[in-house]
């Protein structure tokens, strides 16, 4: 991947800022999401809540199903490959996906190595729980980061924890003396150059979205107030009572995340939210995959 390609790929993530990226499993859902104001859709066969319920090995979706979604909408289409599964990523690049999510929601294909994303022209987004994970993924070529949260739970607590932790660590790195950065890079297990960039600029070098457990307009606005630059909503929309209305409300809440009066109105009559489970109640902890 050339420097220019990497800049263009970071640039696409910048265009998605202030937007909501929605999980969809059919072309019909993709159209509902687009009409509701999704900035992009994530095409996958099963949303995380159903992956949890089904158990077994979760893999990349059928390319035909992804292509049908690409044809159904004009906004960017993303799709997930398993952590470390280079060939699934190559397949997604071959069908000209707009963004690959190397995702812990699927069963990891490699328990040691992530994909060398610098070998691809197509952009990657990766999950992270803290600054170390985020900068390691960026060093591997990711051009966008999202919190891991705990997918498919409808419980926002992990996404909050990850966003707060990452931003607290960034503030701490900013406060260091320059000669302390070498030791900090060693402690975090990240390249010195990337850490020095964070020290200088007080932010990640790529766009950072919230993901994992966002179910309501208030959840989405909470993540924005905590510093997210946009929001992924997975199971929260199409597992709820009135997906189109909930989706449109979350989109508006992300734009006006500080306007409580508006968010109050947006939160009215949304029908049933996804049921939700606590991380303590589940056996499969997806956020621990791929560190």
């Amino acid at each position, binding site marked *: 991947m050339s420097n*220019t390609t990497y*800049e*263009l*790929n970071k*640039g*696409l993530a*910048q*265009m*998605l*800022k*202030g*937007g909501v990226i929605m999980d969809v499993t059919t072309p019909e859902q993709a159209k509902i999401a*687009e*009409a*509701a*104001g*999704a*900035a*992009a859709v994530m095409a996958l066969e099963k949303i995380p809540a159903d992956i949890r319920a089904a158990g077994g090995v979760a893999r990349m979706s059928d390319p035909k199903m992804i292509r049908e979604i*690409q044809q159904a909408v*004009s*906004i*960017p289409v993303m799709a997930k490959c398993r952590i470390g599964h280079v060939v699934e990523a190559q397949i997604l*690049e071959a069908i*000209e*996906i*707009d*963004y690959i999510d190397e995702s812990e929601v699927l069963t990891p294909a490699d328990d040691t190595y992530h994909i060398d994303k610098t070998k691809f*022209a*197509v*952009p990657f987004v990766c999950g992270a729980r803290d600054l170390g994970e985020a900068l390691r993924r960026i060093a591997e070529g990711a051009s966008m980061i999202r919190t891991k949260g705990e997918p498919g739970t409808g419980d926002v607590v992990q996404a909050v924890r990850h966003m707060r932790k990452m931003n607290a660590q960034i503030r701490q790195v900013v406060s260091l003396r320059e000669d302390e950065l070498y030791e900090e890079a060693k402690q975090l297990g990240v390249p010195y150059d990337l850490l020095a960039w964070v020290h200088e600029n007080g932010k990640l070098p790529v766009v950072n979205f919230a993901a994992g457990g966002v179910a309501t307009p208030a959840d989405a606005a909470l993540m924005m107030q905590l510093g997210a630059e946009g929001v992924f909503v997975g199971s929260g929309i199409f597992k709820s009572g009135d997906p189109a209305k909930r989706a*449109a409300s979350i*989109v*508006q809440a*992300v*734009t*006006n995340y500080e*306007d409580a009066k508006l968010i109050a109105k947006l939160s009215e009559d949304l029908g049933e939210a996804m049921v939700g489970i606590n991380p303590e109640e589940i056996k499969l902890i997806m956020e621990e995959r791929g560190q």
Partner: protein
Amino acid sequence: MRIGVLAVQGAFIEHRRMMESLGTECVEIRQKKDLDGIDGLILPGGESTVQGKLLRDLGLFKEVQRLIAEGLPVLATCAGLILLAEHLEADDTTHLGTLPVTVKRNAYGRQLGSFVTRENVGSLEDYPLVFIRAPYIAEASDEVRVLATVDDHIVGVEYQNQIGLAFHPEMTEDCRIHQYFLSKIVK
């Protein structure tokens, strides 16, 4: 002077930073009341479907359309150009419709078709042009002045108070287009 940057979705902070680096006051437009007292408006890149919907949902649409029709200077990039266009190719949707051009969305294909090149933009020489899932202008009416073309396709135009660009000057270090826009307001 005070410039409004439409901030419903997309890369509005990049425009804001560039304007502020030129010493210009900026205000983010998220609701109708934010439009009060602005001397110019920037429509940033992002997703035009999202921005068009939010303009309507948040009650901004008519006011923005009226201000542009009454001569408020506007600089529109990528998705912003799609919002201004009178027509979209192979699409019945029209948003603000104040710029007499026909725009082809995603004209260069998916993200793998995104690219960077250099061309003259009006009187500005050798400008870095960043295209991200970009549109181009398929047709422009005779009163529209063409500012830039790439491979025979129009990618930048000026019409009365409106500048419409298919590319992203805010994603570069080159602020000459923003300076040009400001010079139009001062006049």
